[in-house]
């Protein structure tokens, strides 16, 4: 009796038909973990920016989004975004990959060099970051249960369709989304689907829920800038997974994208610092952290389209423009508490539209922008893609937020907001620094705040 009859045939089949590349798979595994790291990084960044009485709620909104979105994405979100298109490039088939059960075997990978189940998880973590970003606009005043409902509905109704439009490329007999395939929108890692989408959603929510009590009058200083800087550093680290991971391979493209990502963060930081120094007189740590994030936001769609010098320009411009954009909320009177609009929406627009100007065919995406002789062709596609995602995310998020406000109520009581959302919603205090442990300052830090100047 030959030993060959004992060899498991499933294993033999996988070896024969699978195109999995161990380098590509290893990198995408690591990149996915890096993208997940951006969630606690964002939680720290946002947490340090709010007052100490609300830091836990701010971090909870990220952690809650992480938990809810991971599950929803696997159950149905991935299928909606990357399933075979069922309607004019607008949405994928929600049943095709529901639960990801049919992606467990290597047979499902076709000629992909990475396991599709890993690709699905990688994409899901993008959704997590996008959703968590939105929470920055509603600091100190949103009920946690309402937030969880919002982010869950938003994942299925806003993010999944947008991801389908922007990220789902057609291949073989799989039909993908319209912006990627019919419009030719260039968006390597999500300047539209993540940055513009989160910023527009955040703006809608900020308008529906209304400003914090005391917005524009009372000072609301960041309570811990060391957390903000730590968070920004972790975001930058994770962003390499976000951008270079989107190359879906351990290859030249990933290396080029890694380079442009590094440069844009650095240039963004400098741009913001210089603008601050000139306009306000001081280069601040918050400016350094915010600027590097702004640069990274702008390079997110453009990381595969620019030369290294082009990415320096992109990052620098984003740093300067976003530093100016964060003042808009006072000018127009909307309380986008942590500047999701000023940094992510505006930065995403800079990056998305900037591709139309600065793209060079020498870069992986192979298109030329206006400054490289490509005319306004690509610019037009970028404007259309960015504009459509902005409008869709804004309107739909506004509707979802409005319905939640009217049914279960989104906002906490005025008195509770003044006392402090952590204590009211989570029955917790972040810092127990009082010498007589357990006691809590009744003044809630009022004495160390100041008056909001001109």
């Amino acid at each position, binding site marked *: 009796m030959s030993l060959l009859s004992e060899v498991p045939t499933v294993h033999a089949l996988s070896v024969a038909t699978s195109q999995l590349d161990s380098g590509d798979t290893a990198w995408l595994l690591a990149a996915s973990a890096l993208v997940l790291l951006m969630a606690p990084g964002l939680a720290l960044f946002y947490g340090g920016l709010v007052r100490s009485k609300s830091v836990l709620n701010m971090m909870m909104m990220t952690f809650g989004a992480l938990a809810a979105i991971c599950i929803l994405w696997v159950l149905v979100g991935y299928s909606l975004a990357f399933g075979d298109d069922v309607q004019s490039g607008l949405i994928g088939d929600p049943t095709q990959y529901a639960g990801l059960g049919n992606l467990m075997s290597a047979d499902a990978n076709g000629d992909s060099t990475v396991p599709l189940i890993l690709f699905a998880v990688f994409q899901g973590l993008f959704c997590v970051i996008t959703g968590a970003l939105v929470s920055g606009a509603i600091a100190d005043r949103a009920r946690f249960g309402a937030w969880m409902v919002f982010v869950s509905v938003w994942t299925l109704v806003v993010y999944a369709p947008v991801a389908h439009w922007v990220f789902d490329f057609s291949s073989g007999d799989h039909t993908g989304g319209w912006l990627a395939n019919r419009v030719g929108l260039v968006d390597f890692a999500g300047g539209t689907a993540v940055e513009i989408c989160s910023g527009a959603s955040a703006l809608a929510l900020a308008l529906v829920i209304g400003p914090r009590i005391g917005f524009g009058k009372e*000072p609301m*200083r*960041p309570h811990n800038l060391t957390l903000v800087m730590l968070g920004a550093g972790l975001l930058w680290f994770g962003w390499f997974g976000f951008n270079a991971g989107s190359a879906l391979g351990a290859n030249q493209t990933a290396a080029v994208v890694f380079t442009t990502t590094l440069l844009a963060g650095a240039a963004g930081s400098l741009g913001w610092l210089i603008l*601050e120094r000139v*306009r*306000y*007189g*001081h280069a*601040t740590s*918050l*400016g350094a952290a*915010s600027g590097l994030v702004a640069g990274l936001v702008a390079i997110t769609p453009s990381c595969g389209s620019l030369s290294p010098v082009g990415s320096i320009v992109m990052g620098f411009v984003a740093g300067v423009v976003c*530093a100016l954009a*964060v*003042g808009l909320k*006072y000018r127009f009177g909307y309380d986008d508490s942590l*500047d999701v609009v*000023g940094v992510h929406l505006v930065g995403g627009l800079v990056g998305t539209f900037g591709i139309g100007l600065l793209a060079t065919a020498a870069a992986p995406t192979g298109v030329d922008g206006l400054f490289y002789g490509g005319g306004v062709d690509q610019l037009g596609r970028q404007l259309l893609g960015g504009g459509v995602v902005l409008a869709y995310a804004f309107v739909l998020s506004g509707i979802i937020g409005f319905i939640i406000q009217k049914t279960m109520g989104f906002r906490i009581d005025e008195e509770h907001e003044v006392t402090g959302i952590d204590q009211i919603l989570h029955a917790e205090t972040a810092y127990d620094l009082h010498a007589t442990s357990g006691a809590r300052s009744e003044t809630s830090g009022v*004495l*160390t*705040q*100041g*008056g*909001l*100047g*001109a």
Partner: protein
Amino acid sequence: MKLVTAVIKPHKWEDVREALETFGVTGMTVSEVSGYGRQKGHTEVYRGAEYDIALVPKIRIEIVVDDGDAEDVVGIVVKTAQTGRIGDGKVWISPVETVVRVRTGDRDAAAL
């Protein structure tokens, strides 16, 4: 007995404490407080938004002393806490009806 209360600049605290101990003061209560007088606060900037921080950190010292020592203690504080610049603080004396040592129950002079 008198209660001597002093609000002084934080960095003068060690000098004041040493001088008071040399004089013979055996105990005091010290707290970190905020306040302002002629010394105004400062301005901070966060993402382009300016905040006027009106209150300035100070140290408050409270000592219960015999009637006869009160003026001496005031003099010591004024001498050692002075920098000559705005914000040096203030010292004041208020009457104390009774003071009791918790460990023994001794009252008034015996409690100091």
